[in-house]
């Protein structure tokens, strides 16, 4: 019928700048870099722990200072964003049917927020 449909190219490197929802998505995805880095910090702490009290105290001392604080603050923001973005889509991935009806999404999300608060308090209480 016609000879040449026109194909609009999409940039492979800057596509996500074209819409706010894509930027939100990329923000969610890059949280993994901070989780990755932080997990290696935990592994380093574990290594120090295995090397005895002196090594561990030196590790905690090294954690202090503006750089350590800044790193933890940045990671905190990233992980909280990860948690929020993860819980908010949980009802889509794991819907729950009770009897005939599906449980409303906001109930599942709020249940996760509640459990998150409880788990966080337990961890903080243990850490204090």
């Amino acid at each position: 019928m016609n000879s040449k449909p026109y194909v609009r190219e999409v940039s492979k490197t800057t596509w996500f700048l074209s819409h706010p929802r894509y930027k939100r998505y990329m923000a969610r995805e890059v949280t993994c870099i901070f989780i990755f880095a932080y997990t290696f910090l935990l592994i380093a702490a574990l290594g120090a722990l295995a090397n005895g009290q002196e090594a561990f105290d030196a590790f905690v001392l090294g954690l202090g200072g503006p750089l350590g604080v800044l790193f933890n603050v940045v990671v905190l923001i990233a992980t909280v964003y990860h948690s929020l973005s993860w819980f908010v889509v949980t009802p889509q991935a794991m819907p729950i049917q009770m009897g005939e009806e599906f449980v409303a999404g906001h109930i599942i999300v709020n249940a996760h927020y509640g459990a998150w608060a409880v788990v966080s308090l337990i961890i903080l209480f243990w850490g204090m």
Partner: protein
Amino acid sequence: MAKSNKPIFWGLFAAGGTITAFVTPALVLITLFAAMRFNMDMFTYDSIHAFAAWWLGKLIIFGVILVSLWHAAHRLRVTVHDFGVRADKQVAIVVYSLAGLGTLLTLIFLLRI
């Protein structure tokens, strides 16, 4: 069409996404407080060592670190692709090797505690 082997990694990614969503912010708060010298009685050698020396403590630490690593590694693989790097095989090898190395180190450290 062959069935994909992505489920191996996706399973760990999904488990890790859930676990990290629940526990990581609180863990970061603890290390942040330690970095700020907020409370000298927290994050001490004795309390953490006692937990890591306990078999269930070891298991929890290993589980959390394992799924955190593989969650982050798999999502990073996808993110690198999203930023336009098409060498998916090579990227996969690098990120999964990092996660594997972290897993191995965790295992060694835990066994020494």
